[in-house]
């Protein structure tokens, strides 16, 4: 499945909901979306990976790169990642020690706040 990225605001955040396969074919689209958000001076970006069907090391690299870019702009990145098959890839690579993998969007961005 080709990658699609849906953008919408939520409270003081912007959510990028990612759908499809996050691999070498799909990674450039998400990377560009993150770069675009960073350029707007965003303070808190949420990547919602709920509808990601597949992720490999290239996809993980985009997520790591997103964190690096946002931190360089003193911004925050949150991940929503409820699917065990996707969480497992983060865990195998020890990236669950870098990211908090929230089960729901409400966990990542409680209503009325950006934390």
């Amino acid at each position, binding site marked *: 499945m080709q990658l699609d990225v849906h953008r919408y605001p939520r409270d003081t955040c912007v959510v990028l909901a990612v759908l499809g396969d996050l*691999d070498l*074919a799909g990674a450039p689209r998400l990377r560009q979306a993150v770069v675009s958000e960073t350029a707007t001076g965003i303070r808190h970006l949420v990547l919602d990976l709920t509808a990601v069907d597949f992720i*490999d090391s290239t996809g*993980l690299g985009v997520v*790591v790169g997103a964190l690096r870019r946002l931190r360089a702009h003193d911004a925050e990145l949150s991940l929503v990642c409820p699917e065990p098959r996707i969480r497992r*890839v983060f865990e*195998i690579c020890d990236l669950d020690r870098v990211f908090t993998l929230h089960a729901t969007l409400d966990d990542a961005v409680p209503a009325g706040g950006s934390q």
Partner: protein
Amino acid sequence: MSSASRPVGSVEIAVPPTPEYLQVVRAIVGATAALDDRLQPGRVADVRLVVSEAVTNAIRAQATAGVAAAIDVRCDLVGDRIIVEVADHGPGFDPSAVPDLPEVETPERLRHESGLGVSLMHQLADSAQFESGPGGTIVKLTFVVGDA
């Protein structure tokens, strides 16, 4: 498929070295591996992931060298093993020279957006072997599915 079913056979595909074919490779190799009902669903996902990593590396290697030849992918169901081979025509690499990534919790780690593929192959396959030379690289990934 009955629990007594033990398919034996091979599937071979040759795919253009472009990212759009990754999902095709995953679908075909994953479906072939799943024919052996001893392979748990989670392990089928592992097969899909490692073949994706191997073909991704092959695509990148051939792009570096400007080689348009097809990448050969083979999945063998044989006895108690599923063997996946990916052969490219890139410039080759030294498998022993793949650098370790910085510790995951260090700031330096965030500078590395790639480099996890070979590590994933070693972690998820029961065996990951790399034969590489100037004419290309063959990656052989073995999954043990039965009582060896």
